[in-house]
């Protein structure tokens, strides 16, 4: 058994998700190598070498891998996969973009978004927007898996695994990076935050999302949104929590002006404590909320901010 974990990068640095994927790999057993792919990613490789449980870090640092385009990354993974029984990545947009290419090129299925490891070949994963949990067994020679990071606690740091270069360079004439518009935020990353406060259609407009800022500052919380708020143009789409957005499981999730559609619940119902603030006391969100407060969010939010 040998496992290759594709590292997650955020602006060239190692992202927190990688430590969660290594944790999932540890439950499967076997040697764990981490692969860092990109351009100018030596620092990320050094950071990955510190993660507990990692045997070796392999780093493919080349201009062809800049922005982690699917075509060159898929080709690289196919080259390397022969050394492994499992290839894992987080269920981030990069993992989801690249891993199915590897699976198809190796003629194996892929298991998406696993939340638990039963054994080296049997896993649990949510289906139907998290309304059912499937236990699936793969008899493929190579297991290609994406991991839901909220299902596994991150491994610690204290390791000093060797870092070796991967010299494979693949040609790519099919896809080209044009531009990126990344949302800048000083707040914690939505996927890894301990506290998340999200606004929905009830916020009324984008300007009103500022009402969440003060509370987020006091709680060191990330700010999220429902699809309704994103579709209405209140906030950018990378803030969306739900089946088609980010999946979060913080210690505290505060849903403000969010009715609680199935698709939104899919993204947050594994939070430890859920608070709902909504003026409609029939809103479905109250069925999953540990604490519900019925009332006008425009009165409640400033009061909450002042009392924290």
């Amino acid at each position: 058994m040998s496992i290759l974990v594709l590292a997650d990068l955020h602006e060239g640095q190692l992202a927190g998700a990688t430590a969660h994927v290594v944790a999932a790999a540890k439950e499967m057993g076997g040697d764990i190598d981490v692969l860092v792919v990109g351009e100018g990613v030596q620092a990320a490789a050094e950071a990955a070498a510190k993660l507990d449980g990692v045997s070796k870090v392999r780093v493919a640092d080349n201009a062809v891998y800049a922005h982690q385009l699917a075509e060159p990354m898929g080709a690289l993974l196919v080259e390397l996969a022969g050394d492994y029984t499992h290839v894992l990545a987080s269920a981030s947009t990069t993992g989801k973009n690249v891993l199915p290419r590897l699976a198809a090129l190796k003629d194996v299925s892929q298991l998406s978004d696993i939340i638990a490891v039963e054994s080296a070949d049997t896993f649990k994963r949510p289906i139907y927007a998290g309304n059912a949990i499937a236990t699936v067994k793969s008899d493929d020679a190579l297991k290609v898996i994406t991991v839901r990071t909220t299902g596994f606690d991150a491994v610690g740091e204290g390791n000093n695994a060797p870092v070796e270069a991967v010299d494979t360079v693949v040609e790519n004439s099919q896809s080209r990076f044009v531009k990126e518009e990344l949302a800048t935020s000083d707040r914690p990353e939505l996927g890894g935050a301990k506290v998340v406060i999200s606004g929905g259609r009830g916020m009324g407009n984008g300007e009103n999302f500022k009402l969440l800022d003060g509370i987020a500052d006091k709680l060191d919380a990330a700010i999220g949104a429902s699809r309704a708020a994103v579709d209405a143009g209140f906030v950018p789409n990378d803030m969306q929590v739900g089946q088609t957005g980010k999946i979060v499981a913080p210690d505290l999730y505060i849903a403000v002006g969010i009715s609680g559609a199935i698709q939104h619940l899919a993204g947050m119902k594994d939070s430890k404590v859920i608070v709902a603030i909504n003026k409609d006391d029939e809103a479905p969100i109250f069925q999953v909320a540990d604490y519900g407060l019925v009332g006008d969010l425009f009165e409640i939010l400033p009061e909450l901010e002042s009392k924290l």
Partner: protein
Amino acid sequence: MKVLVAVKRVIDYNVKIRVKADHSDVDLTNVKMAMNPFCEIAVEEAVRLKEKGVATEVIAVSVGPKAAQEQLRTALALGADRAIHIETNERVESLAVAKLLAKVVDEEQPSLVILGKQAIDTDNNQTGQMLAALTGLPQGTFASEVAVDGDSVNVTREIDGGLQTIALTLPAIVTTDLRLNEPRYAKLPDIMKAKKKPLDVKTPADYGIEVASKVSLLKVESPPERKGGVKVASVDELVDKLKNEAKVL
């Protein structure tokens, strides 16, 4: 240019699903089915390309039971020109669907293939990427904007940190994200006309594809229920509960 769109018949997204008592699967008997929402967006995008004069023909394809023809008829009513149904009653995993679609791509030689980013039943998010790999074509996944420009296409993708734009040489595979467009509704006259549009029925065997998978479904369970919470009367009580009862502040 020719555009191929893949559509899937799935449970209607508003339906609250039930797990079968024997835990073998989700119970789909007498449940309302519909076109997967992401596939609706794919069809809409293809039809818009046709309306702009970029696409000359739109072909809809679906893999699944006979009833999936309803979703193909919907695609035809929305503006697709013809449909291909690959009929099978087996559980078909993404890889097998991708292999079947690769055969259709080979036969039809479309310049663009548009799929939804994921089906809301299996939540896999794999088929488009697998199709791209099998056909050797570039992929633009999670698209929120698609702009065809001569022999290339610019795809703006929804990524974790924001938006990324890439340029792909045609032919290419694109998968749709929610914000790509707002799908239209089928009008009654178009629904009537769609009944006369061509719909070819094939089987996986016609394409020489084995749909069996090495992944087996052992069990399906309901997720752990959250126990009902309490409603608090005031902000003070809420803050108190969070501090002293839940201990999350």
